[in-house]
C-alpha cells in the first residue's frame, strides 16, 4: 500500500505561525485568566487579492482560504492545483450564521441578507478555495464535531493509498464568536480550565516521499474510551506501524479536562500539551498535527518550557473534544521510512 506524506503546511493560530521562522521563541502559553485565544491574523489583502471576493468573506473563510492558498503556493509563486480538496470544520461559518439569525429576528423573517446565508455554510472556505484555484475536482467538507479534521485526513489518506489521487489539500478551521463562547459557557463547556481557541491549518498530502516534510502514518478515532485504553491505543498505533512504544519520542497531547487520561499518557510517554498554545476548538488537532510537522522538519524538540535542537523521529498526536471525541495521529520522519 502506498504511504502518505505531508509535503507542505500552513497555519494561522493564536501564536506566530503564519509564514514565519523561529516562531517558537515568541509563543506564549494560555494564562489562567484568559478565556479566549484569538488567532493572529495576517494582512489578507496580499493573500486573497480579489477584493470583490474578499469583502464577502467572514473571519473563518479568510483564515481557511489563506492557509489553503499559502499551503499550495510554490517557491516560484505559482499555485499547485491538487487532485482533491478536503475541508474540516466543527462549527462552520458561525459569524455569518449569527448575523443571518439575528437578521431573521430583527427583521421579522423578512429582508434577509443573501451574503450571510451563502457564506454561513460549513463548506464555504473549501468552495471558495476551489473557486479561486479554478479547481473542478473532488471537493468535500467534513463537519463531524471533534472528528472533523481526522475525517478529512482519513478521506484523503484512503484516496491516496488506493491510488485514486496523487495529492490532496486538507484544511481544518474554526472560529470564535462571542455568541458561541457565551452559549457554550452557559452549557458549562469551559469549566475544565481550557480556553476557547480558533485557527486554520492546511496540509498538502501526497504519495511522493521526495521533498516531503514527514509521513502521516496513521489517523485513528476512539470513542467511549477510558484513560488506560487511550494510553494502550497509542502503543497499539505504534505497533501497527512497525514501532515499539519506546520508539514514540513525543506525544503532543490535546487533553480537555481529563486529568486521568493526561496522567496515563504522561506516565508512559514523553508529552507536551499543544492546546496551551491554540486553545480548544473542533479542528484543534490540525494545529497539533502542524506542530508535529514543524518539530520533525526543523529538528526541534520541547524541553520543559523551552525548545532545543533535537531530531525526533516519531510523534503521536492525541486530541480530545468535549470529553467525547478522542483521536490519535502518528507522524514519522520521512527519511527513516
Amino acid at each position, binding site marked *: 500500500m502506498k504511504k502518505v506524506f505531508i509535503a507542505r503546511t500552513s497555519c494561522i493560530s493564536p501564536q506566530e505561525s503564519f509564514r514565519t521562522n523561529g516562531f517558537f521563541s515568541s509563543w506564549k502559553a494560555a494564562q489562567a485568566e484568559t478565556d479566549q485565544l484569538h488567532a493572529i491574523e495576517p494582512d489578507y489583502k496580499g493573500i486573497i487579492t480579489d*477584493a*470583490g471576493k*474578499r*469583502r*464577502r468573506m467572514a473571519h473563518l473563510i479568510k483564515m481557511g482560504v489563506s492557509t489553503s492558498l499559502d499551503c499550495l503556493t510554490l517557491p516560484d509563486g505559482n499555485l499547485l492545483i491538487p487532485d482533491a480538496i478536503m475541508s474540516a470544520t466543527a462549527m462552520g461559518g458561525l459569524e455569518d450564521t449569527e448575523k443571518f439569525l439575528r437578521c431573521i429576528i430583527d*427583521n421579522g423573517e423578512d*429582508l*434577509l*441578507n*443573501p*451574503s450571510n446565508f*451563502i457564506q454561513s455554510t460549513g463548506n464555504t472556505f473549501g468552495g471558495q478555495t476551489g473557486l479561486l484555484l479554478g479547481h473542478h475536482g473532488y471537493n468535500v467538507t467534513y463537519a463531524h464535531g471533534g472528528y472533523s479534521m481526522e475525517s478529512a485526513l482519513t478521506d484523503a489518506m484512503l484516496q491516496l493509498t488506493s491510488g485514486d489521487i496523487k495529492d490532496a489539500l486538507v484544511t481544518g478551521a474554526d472560529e470564535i464568536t462571542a455568541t458561541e463562547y457565551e452559549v457554550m459557557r452557559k452549557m458549562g463547556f469551559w469549566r475544565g480550565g481550557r480556553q476557547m481557541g480558533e485557527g486554520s491549518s492546511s496540509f498538502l498530502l501526497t504519495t511522493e516521499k521526495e521533498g516531503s516534510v514527514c509521513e502521516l502514518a496513521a489517523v485513528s478515532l476512539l470513542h467511549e474510551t477510558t484513560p488506560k485504553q487511550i494510553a494502550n491505543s497509542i502503543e497499539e498505533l505504534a505497533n501497527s506501524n512497525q514501532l515499539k512504544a519506546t520508539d514514540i519520542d513525543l506525544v503532543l497531547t490535546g487533553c480537555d479536562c481529563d486529568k486521568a487520561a493526561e496522567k496515563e499518557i504522561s506516565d508512559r510517554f514523553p508529552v507536551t500539551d499543544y492546546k496551551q498554545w491554540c486553545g480548544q476548538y473542533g479542528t484543534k488537532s490540525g494545529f497539533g498535527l502542524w506542530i508535529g510537522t514543524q518539530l520533525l522538519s526543523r529538528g526541534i524538540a520541547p524541553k520543559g518550557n523551552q525548545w532545543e535542537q533535537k531530531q525526533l523521529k516519531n510523534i503521536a498526536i492525541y486530541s480530545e473534544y468535549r470529553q467525547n471525541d478522542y483521536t490519535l495521529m502518528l507522524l514519522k520522519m520521512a527519511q527513516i521510512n
Partner: protein
Amino acid sequence: MDNLIEQLKQQIIDELNLEETTPADIDPAAPLFGDKGLGLDSIDALELVMLLEKYYGIKIPEPKQAKEVFTSVNSIAEYIKANKK
C-alpha cells in the same frame, strides 16, 4: 438631493462591505454594475433591493425596473425621491 446621495453612498459601502471604498471614491453618475464603476454583481443587486426596503420602505415590484433603478447612485436617489412615502 446631495445629502441623499452622500447618505446612499455610505449605506452602499456599509451594506455591501466595500472595505477599501470611501464615499469620495464613488462617482454618483458611474455605473454600479459591470467592469466600469463599482463592479457590483447579482448578489449585490439583492442587497440593494433590501437596502431600499430597509432604509426607505420602498419595494421594487418589477424585476425589470430594478435594472433601471440600480444603474447608478444618482438613479437610485431619483427613484427614492419619487417613491418615498
